């Protein structure tokens, strides 16, 4: 008689799929928590690189003779690049695994970050920002990886912490890049027009190092890596090709709805990252440094607010099921929309800062709550759904910036901000359309026999 195959031993409690059912933030236990830490660090470096240019714009714009139009176009280009990259990253994760997909992208975009030191014209500036924006597609790999490693009762938490801590990269870079440049100009006596070019070595090296760590220490699934070899087709998405996987995901209407709502929470967050520093500088006359610090604090709030969204999602899911997750998402995003409308109407500096802080907490929590719902939409096309939602985020950013903040319109920035809040409230209403036969929706109960142990039904539904 053959001995039964040895059950693998995990240091965290796991479910039937070997996904962890507990989330221990400060442990490095392989493979679950190690994957978490590698993943958020790698995405942090991607956000750090993508947003490393805006804080140095005051130096770059005089050296490259940039105009406001060029800067606006480059900002939009940075997000446009990531739209298609995120959509493509979805199937890539389903087929190759998040580890290889994310580290490949990081290692391929690191040379682009280095090439910032070579640019000399506005056109090359726009092109470089477009290409660096591709690295934001790693967000999809990050969320996919967390959804593969963590069970449904902690998946919102894991997704929230991973994305939240990674988003801090966009705030940290606003503080660190100017510091690096002043270090180079003061301590090494390098002229500032050379110093800003040299400073981009830091984000590029950081990105490469984290990608290499992911390759060496990371693992796609609790049981091992994806291996698309003939022997183990089971772990490789049932031998489907790129387009089958892609279209299966695209056919799912819930992915589109979540893409729309995510476009109006994360997209609004990205837009705010771009416009807030200039808004405070122009409207209230604060210093450039102070305006930059205020804008940085908007991004830094991600440390707690996005994980908080994940925590709320899991808690509501535990008590009220999918209905709880959907309702809490709707409430938080609508409140964020109301605060955004208020932000455009407040006339005093301190009032604006307070409203902005509250707004940042709610809008980032809404992003965390969205990715508490995404893992449940599709099992076999999880990557594609994550990609659609993630792309929706950047599409929202591009559309909002073009419509409201591109400088060619008649209304002021504060009216634009209020309109952005209104658009958030209206788009969130589409959440009412989401309905899961197994778990129900916002207004209707489930229509299938609820059986929490029967994962097969879930698998077969999509």
């Amino acid at each position, binding site marked *: 008689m053959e001995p039964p195959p040895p059950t693998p031993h995990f240091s965290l409690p796991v479910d039937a799929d070997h996904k962890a059912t507990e989330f221990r933030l400060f442990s490095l236990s392989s493979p679950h928590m190690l994957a978490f830490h590698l993943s958020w660090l790698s995405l942090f470096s991607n956000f750090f690189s993508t947003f490393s240019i805006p804080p140095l714009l005051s130096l770059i714009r005089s050296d490259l003779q940039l105009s*406001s*139009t060029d800067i606006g176009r480059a900002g939009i280009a940075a997000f446009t690049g990531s739209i298609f990259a995120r959509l493509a990253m979805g199937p890539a994760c389903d087929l190759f695994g998040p580890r290889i997909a994310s580290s490949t992208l990081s290692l391929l975009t690191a*040379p682009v970050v280095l090439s910032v030191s070579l640019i000399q014209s506005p056109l090359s500036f726009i092109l470089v920002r477009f290409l660096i924006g591709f690295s934001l597609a790693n967000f999809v790999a990050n969320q996919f990886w967390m959804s593969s490693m963590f069970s449904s009762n902690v998946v919102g938490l894991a997704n929230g912490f991973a994305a939240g801590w990674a988003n801090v990269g966009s705030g940290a870079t606003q503080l660190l890049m100017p510091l690096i440049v002043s270090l180079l100009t003061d301590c090494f006596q390098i002229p500032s027009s050379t110093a800003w*070019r040299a400073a981009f070595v830091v984000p590029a090296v950081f990105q490469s190092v984290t990608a290499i760590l992911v390759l060496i220490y990371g693992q796609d699934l609790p049981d091992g890596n994806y291996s698309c070899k003939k022997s183990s087709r089971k772990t490789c998405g049932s031998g489907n090709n790129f387009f089958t996987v892609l279209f299966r995901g695209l056919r799912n209407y819930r992915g589109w709805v979540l893409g729309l709502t995510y476009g109006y929470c994360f997209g609004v967050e990205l837009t705010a990252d771009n416009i807030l520093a200039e808004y405070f500088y122009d409207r209230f006359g604060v210093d450039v440094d102070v305006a930059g610090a205020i804008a940085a604090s908007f991004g830094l709030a991600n440390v707690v607010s996005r994980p908080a969204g994940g925590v709320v999602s899991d808690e509501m899911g535990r008590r009220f099921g999918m209905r709880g997750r959907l309702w809490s998402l709707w409430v938080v995003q609508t409140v964020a929309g109301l605060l955004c409308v208020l932000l455009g109407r407040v006339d005093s500096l301190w009032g604006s800062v307070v409203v902005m802080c509250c707004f940042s907490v709610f809008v980032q929590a809404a992003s965390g709550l969205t990715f508490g719902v995404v893992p449940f939409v599709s099992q076999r096309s999880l990557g594609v759904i994550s990609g659609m939602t993630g792309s929706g985020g950047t599409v929202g950013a591009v559309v909002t910036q073009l419509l409201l903040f591109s400088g060619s319109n008649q209304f002021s920035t504060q009216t634009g901000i209020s309109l952005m809040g209104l658009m958030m409230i209206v788009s969130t209403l589409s959440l009412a359309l989401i309905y899961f036969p197994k778990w129900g929706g916002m207004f209707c109960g489930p229509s299938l026999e609820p059986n929490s142990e029967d994962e097969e039904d879930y698998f077969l539904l999509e």
Partner: protein
Amino acid sequence: MKMSFDRRLKNPSLGTQRSDKYSKIRLIFLGSLESKLSQLPLLLLIAFEVHGQSSMDVCGFLVVSLLLSCLVETCYGVAFSSLQSTLVVAASPTPGQALKAGQDQITVAWSFNQTHTSGTDSTYKTMKVKLCYAPISQVDRSWRKTNDDLSKDKTCQFNIISGPYNSTSGNNSFTWTIGKDIPTATYFVRAYAYNADGVEAAYGQTTNPQKTTDLFEVTGITGRHVSIDVASICFSAFSIVVLFGFFYIEKRKAE
């Protein structure tokens, strides 16, 4: 206003004869009345007259009122349209000439325009000559925008020379090596004369009021350096090599 404080504190005989703490306060009081700015410093000092004990308090309140007055002053700057063009300024570059930052030199010369009533310049105490952006370099660049309120105006961002105003000798000139941080753009030169309170009183510029004539160009220094180019290419090659090396190793392991 800051300058008036300093001068009066150093020269108490300008005010009253008494040199005790209260005389200092009264001097400041007079100073703030003269400058005709906001009521805030005035209120502060009236409040202080009621108190006024140790010299530490005096120092503290002096600093606070100075700071507040300066802040207030920057909030309400002089309007450029209210200034008279009483100075004649000339710069050495010929119209349309291209100069190199960090290498070439500009010689500026300024004097009082004698067609104006003599004695108008008796209020001018200091002056600054600045390098200013021409309108063509301000298009679509809000960080260089011209604003009539001089405290918010960003047209003239680079100082060529500043110092005391000297009206007796007609030939004031200075040769300036263009700074290394001057960006590529089209420029003209403008001189501001300041009165005793440090407020702009008059100006003069090398170009016409529409800023269309006698403009010159400066080509900025590019920050590109061979060592950075080499480092970038090396690091890029390293990351690509690592990626493909890794794929190769994985393939070897699987076989």
